[in-house]
């Protein structure tokens, strides 16, 4: 299915002379076993994440954005999910070729991850200082005392007040925002090149969300961290990301620099998503809901998976369109027979 887009999707097509990407994903396809049948829940996802860049992966529930992250991290549950095709490269390491033991040396070391609900990712019966120190002991071979000192320094880095005392506190003694800071300290303990942030602020109040996003932006500037931000919130995307990938039902349907995306969204789904969003910064406008719902994996149509809800659908949509450039530099791409320029789709 990648064939049609192959020339423009080749890794080398990324701007010549650009920095080596911190994370490089090619043709990533993830299958899930549902009722004994393997079905592709994520199809042919490709992107590069540069050091110091924030790339947003957006979409609604079930679009495959979190599954993409789990695949990159090598955290698919055996027997239920598997990497069916494609490759993942973290820095110089071809992570998708590693077995579980080797992958453990990468996770929490070259790549860190934070989740939506920090309470369920932290161990409730261990002190937070110890939890932050653990990857340092495991990956860096630090002694306990040294690791604890470093943990306290990390807590100061993520601006947890009174870090010296709170290093011995338990997760339940922290507020939601402070717990997310603990998670961030843990994720960056080993100075990873890549941080995957899966809905990191969705459970937080907006003022706390703003603080946590500011913190991530600051750490990114200081450490050249590449951040893959997974979110459903287009407002957050506009505020912090440089590039955006829109996913629908497992397919990347649009990929663009943030400014281009919000100024001229090209895929009918992207357009609909923006029109469905009530905005605080504008007088009430007519919301345009998207009719229907995402089909289940077992009932996906052939070709474009959005065709059943799309006002522009044509018979040709029964064949999956390639992701093609809609602008000169090729940074804005769309997967649509109708809205992409016909010239770009010529084989």
């Amino acid at each position, binding site marked *: 299915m990648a064939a049609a887009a192959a020339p423009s999707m080749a890794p080398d097509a990324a701007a010549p002379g650009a920095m080596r990407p911190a994370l490089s994903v090619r043709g990533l396809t993830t299958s899930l076993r549902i009722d004994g049948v393997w079905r592709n829940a994520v199809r042919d996802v490709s992107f590069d994440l540069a050091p110091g860049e924030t790339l947003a992966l957006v979409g609604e529930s079930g679009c495959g954005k979190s599954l993409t992250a789990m695949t990159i991290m090598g955290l698919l549950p055996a027997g239920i999910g598997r990497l069916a095709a494609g490759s993942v490269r973290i820095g110089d390491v071809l992570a998708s070729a590693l077995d579980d033991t080797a992958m453990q040396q990468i996770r929490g070391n070259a790549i860190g991850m934070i989740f939506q609900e920090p309470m369920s990712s932290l161990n409730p019966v261990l002190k937070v200082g110890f939890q932050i120190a653990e990857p340092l002991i495991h990956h860096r071979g630090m002694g306990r005392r040294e690791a604890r000192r470093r943990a306290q320094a990390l807590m100061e880095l993520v601006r947890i007040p009174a870090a010296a005392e709170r290093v011995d506190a338990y997760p339940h003694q922290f507020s939601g925002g402070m717990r997310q800071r603990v998670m961030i300290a843990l994720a960056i303990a080993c100075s990873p090149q890549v941080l995957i942030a899966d809905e990191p602020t969705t459970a937080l109040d907006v003022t706390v969300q703003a603080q946590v996003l500011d913190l991530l932006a600051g750490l990114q500037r200081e450490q050249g961290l590449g951040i893959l931000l997974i979110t459903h919130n287009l407002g957050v995307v506009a*505020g912090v990301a440089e590039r955006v990938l829109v996913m629908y039902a497992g397919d990347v349907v649009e990929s663009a620099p943030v400014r281009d995306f919000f100024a001229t969204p090209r895929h009918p789904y992207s357009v609909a998503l923006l029109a469905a969003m009530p905005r605080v910064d504008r007088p009430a406008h007519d919301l345009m809901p998207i009719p229907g719902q995402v089909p289940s994996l077992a009932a996906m149509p052939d070709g474009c998976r959005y065709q059943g809800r799309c006002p522009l659908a044509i018979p040709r949509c029964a064949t999956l369109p390639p992701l093609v450039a809609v602008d000169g530099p090729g940074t804005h791409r769309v997967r649509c027979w109708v809205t992409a320029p016909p010239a770009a789709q010529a084989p």
Partner: protein
Amino acid sequence: MMLLDVADLAKTFTVRQGWPIPRQVSLRALDGVSFCVDRGEALGVVGESGCGKSTAARVVLRLIEADRGRVTFDGEDVLAASPARMRTLRRRMQIVFQDPASALDPRQRVGAALGEALAVHGMARDAAGARIGAVLDEVGLPAAAAGRFPHEFSGGQRQRIGIARALALAPDLIIADEPVSALDVSVQAQILLLLAELKRRRSLAFVFVSHDLGVVRHFCERTVVMYLGRIIESGPTGALFDAPKHPYTQLLRAACPVPDPAAPRRAAIAEGEPPSPVAPPPGCHFNPRCPLATPLCRDVVPPLRDFGAGRAVACHHAT
């Protein structure tokens, strides 16, 4: 006369806190809250976790009993109503919850869930059947939905069922507690349009509790902003969000992400989180985080002052 008039509500919860020896502490969830809602009007109640917005909504229905204050619904004193009288009143005041999955009994068919409300209020079985069909149609579900179980529906459809159940008794007022917060944006828009249509057609009044300022701006004519149990600002929704007067409303508005990369970059949000409602600071609760705070703010609770054009602000320094 307003349909719903709430005056000076107060509610303090006793919670046990601490380990290994828990202590009883009191948490002041509502501290002198007043608002009113007219027929066919939607009032937004916004604020962050722990500000008391859900408690305010529940006290109106007496799902939680207030310590103090007055709730008047269509001229009748709700807090003093007898249990029998309360049943009649509840027919006209219904609630829609955030998570319809947990608000519906998983082992009860949708028709039975809707019929239960009608039976409690004394409607005969066959009349109830017709009403259920009509109300399902009104929320955009097929009549066949009555014979199915909640798990057979998607999140958006379940919220439609929750709305249908609230509508079954033809209420005048709906208390909606984060009714679209659990939904994806495309489905959220479907439900918001449905609610707007019902509001217009049935002249329904809403108390609409939400943390999402965009949703409130879209749906509500007027809005009150709460902070640690008090209303700190109120006014027509558009004016309130375009030019907030209270420093907390300004902070809330600035922190709210908008889908526009060209939007002016907000100033960094001051460090600090809302203090615990168990130990709120004296004076204006917002004073420890407020750039305008003076000694006056630490001593004296600012009253909600009238600024004209329907706006009121509880700040010593607002102009």
